[in-house]
């Protein structure tokens, strides 16, 4: 047990957390970054397609206003227009800053950053690094943080936030390696803990996307919003849910059903490049109508006409995933795909500067607490996020959160916290190892939660199923007391899996409640009984 002090503590090492850390550091703050996985293993590293910004490098007359309108349109009336304006205006600078930080965006022959078309965007404004954009961004930002002296704590799990007199002033964290408990004090804390894909059985998200930050924020009285808004990406590799980038369709690929028909034009004039919610529903409708390929609950993604050379140049990672995980050669075969839980539009309600609002308020903030990235909700994505807008969200609002956290920290004293919480947390963990029946594991309970969520809170929703899921969630919660737990000195993963499940259950409960309350379909939230 030890006490650690930093001006700013960032929780999360994805694009939002790293960008926030750099911004706070550049503003002169002394920064610690805690992440339950090594930052380079974060979900952000898997982002493929790219990052949108109206740089107009193809000279198709793109400007921030057009990006703004596309984003609002896709968000189906749920976006905050001011926030979208900030996102789109600051987009081009965000790309330039990342480039200067070392990110290798692909370039056109004239040397300018290359841009390509993307689903739902009216202009070619997606900047990319092949189909490894997130990888390129995370690696560059991580090493910049190392270079600039951000203190990085890889594989540290934040257990709870600490609040004194209504101000957040640190957290209790576990060093995963040996399960030791530490008190981390800070003048300001930034949550950048990413998404919630692990609430679902079919997801593109990594194991870490369990919604911890949202649970942590709620525990200190933060306002959460739009919790029913989950984006299902149309093309998850069947049956694993691994993301097959939208760039496959951006580059000319299309979807077909069992009758070999390009069905998407039946649903939308933009066909395969309609927004994700529409394409996912199109696919799900085909599957539900029994037109899935090979009699399976999936449709086919066809890119064969691009030819091997184009495929290897434009979508090499998709080709590798197809080969490795499905033994399929994209140049000669059709890939089986189905919708996969991908992105959380809802989350912790924040201001344009990343301050976290108090429960029931859109003015009062929780002093000392900030949030950015997928765990937060402004909302810039509304009811349906546009592809390539979320890396941008992380970069733009991550930076803003870092800057305002640094400003807040300058103006505040370090509140010192009595070290009682660490022993309470140790005690809690210890209690979990005692008196449990060895008949069920966190993993099994999570699988049960996931199956129910995918079946009843997925692409299509209806009240009856949602009600059933509420009961199911309650039952799972009751079963948590009998989780199998083998006491063993060493890594803390057993306690962490259980804590993550608790967070996920809290969010799932509110998600289902929100989905029941919103009886009208909008964007990604689709009620078949409305």
């Amino acid at each position, binding site marked *: 047990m030890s006490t650690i002090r930093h001006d700013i503590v960032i929780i999360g090492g994805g694009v939002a957390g790293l960008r926030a850390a750099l911004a706070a550091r550049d503003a002169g703050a002394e920064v610690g970054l805690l992440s339950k*996985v*090594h930052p*380079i*293993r*974060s*979900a952000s*590293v*898997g982002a493929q397609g790219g990052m949108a910004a109206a740089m107009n490098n193809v000279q198709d007359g793109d400007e921030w206003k057009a990006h703004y309108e596309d984003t609002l349109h896709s968000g189906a009336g749920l976006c905050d227009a001011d926030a979208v304006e900030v996102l789109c205006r600051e987009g081009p600078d965000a790309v*330039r*800053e990342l*480039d*200067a*930080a*070392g990110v*290798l*965006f*692909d*370039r056109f022959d*004239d*040397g*300018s950053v290359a841009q390509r078309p993307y689903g739902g965007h009216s202009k070619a404004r997606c900047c990319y*690094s*092949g189909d*490894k954009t997130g*990888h*390129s961004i995370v*690696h*560059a930002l991580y*090493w*910049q943080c*190392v*270079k600039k002296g951000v203190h990085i704590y*890889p594989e540290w799990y934040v257990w709870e936030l600490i609040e004194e007199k209504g101000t957040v002033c640190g957290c209790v964290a576990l060093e995963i*390696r*040996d399960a030791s408990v530490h008190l981390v004090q800070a003048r300001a804390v930034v949550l950048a803990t990413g998404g919630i894909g692990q609430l679902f059985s079919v997801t593109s998200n*990594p*194991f*870490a996307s369990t919604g911890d930050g949202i649970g942590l924020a709620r525990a200190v009285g933060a306002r959460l919003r739009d919790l029913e808004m989950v984006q299902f990406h149309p093309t998850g590799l069947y049956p*694993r849910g*691994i*993301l097959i980038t939208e760039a496959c369709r951006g580059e000319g690929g299309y979807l077909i059903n069992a009758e070999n028909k390009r069905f998407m034009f039946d649903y939308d004039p933009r066909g395969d490049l309609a927004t994700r919610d529409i394409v996912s529903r199109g696919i799900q409708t085909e599957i539900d109508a029994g037109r899935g390929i090979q009699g399976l609950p999936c449709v086919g993604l066809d890119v064969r006409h691009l030819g091997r050379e184009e495929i290897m140049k434009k979508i090499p*990672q998709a080709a*590798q*995933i197809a080969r*490795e*995980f499905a033994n399929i050669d994209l140049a000669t075969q059709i890939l089986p795909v189905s919708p996969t839980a991908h992105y959380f539009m809802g989350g912790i309600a924040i201001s344009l500067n990343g301050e976290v609002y108090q429960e029931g308020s859109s003015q009062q903030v929780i002093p000392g607490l900030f949030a950015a990235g997928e765990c937060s909700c402004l909302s810039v994505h509304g009811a349906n996020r546009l592809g390539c807008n979320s890396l941008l969200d992380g970069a733009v609002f991550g930076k803003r959160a870092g800057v305002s956290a640094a400003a807040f920290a300058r103006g505040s004293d370090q509140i010192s916290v009595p070290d009682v919480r660490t022993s309470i947390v140790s005690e809690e963990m210890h209690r979990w190892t005692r008196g449990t029946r060895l008949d069920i*594991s*966190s*993993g*099994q309970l999570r699988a049960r939660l996931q199956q129910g969520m995918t079946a009843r809170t997925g692409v299509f929703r209806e009240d009856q199923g949602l009600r059933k899921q509420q009961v199911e969630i309650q039952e799972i919660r009751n079963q948590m007391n009998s989780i*199998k*737990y*083998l006491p*063993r*000195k*060493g*890594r803390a*993963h*057993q306690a962490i*899996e259980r804590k993550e499940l608790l967070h996920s259950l809290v969010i799932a409960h509110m998600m289902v409640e929100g989905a029941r309350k919103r009886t009208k379909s909008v964007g990604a939230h689709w009620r078949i009984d409305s």
Partner: protein
Amino acid sequence: MSTTITLVIRRQKPGDSGSFFMEHQVEADGKTVLDALKEMRDTVDPSLAFRAQCKSGICGSCALRVNGSARLACSTFLSAVQIEGRVVLEPLLNFAVEEDLVVQDRPFWKAIEAIKPWLWSDKGYEHEAVVPPQVKNGTDCILCAACYSECEVQAVKPSGYTGPAGFVQAHRFVADKRDHGGKERLKLLETEGLWSCAHSYNCSEVCPKDIDIGGAIADLRSQALAAGLGRNAGGRHVAWFTRGVRRNGKMNEFWTLAGTRGWRIIFDLPTGLAMAIRGKIPWPWGKKAKSSREVRRYFRSKNQ
């Protein structure tokens, strides 16, 4: 039809120096190594420790040894690697084991950090910059450390050796036209073992991203020579290395080292001896190559 295989997992309690094997039967069809590990943790033993995140071969968390060679758990299918119905899972080599399949990865990150893998430039954003294709080779690296596990130089734990992944990162920056490191970077690489690589090419063979690591190292070396570096050690090393290969159809690290370092080889003896004892380099008077495997590996590196 279902196939059952026996999973054999090397386990080690934290703080213990000894390990033990745990065996378990699993249905193998359509399952990856990671699927099986997850199933084990969820249904058999929740204390089983391993790392994994993306399950799609992009985050680099899950490298371990499968039947002896380093691979990603998430993209390795049991049916493809089983030998007589068995799949043996062990932690990566060249690391201290933290617990079960989890290794203490800190030295790996430190070794990469040593080559300063960030853009050396104070110019800020440049509107026009061209990215030469060979940079892409390095940006594919997911820092999974599979190469580090198989590296024969790493095996003797030398200090000041960044290792294969470090060279791959360095190569990416040297090729990046925006980077101003130039000769300084190459000089730094000399202190990080640019001339120590023993050309086993094990790294290139296991890299899950098919990165031509050997090629990257060779290219860095020729760039260093072209920049007038390696005069004392490097140039002679390459010359002796080539001579050794031509004469015996096999390189002999001893004579390569001797020719390179001259009388200073005395300083290399501890490392060299350690490598020889572990069978990593031949004794000075070794026989000619039984197979031409090394030679083929050598010429696979097109740049040398």
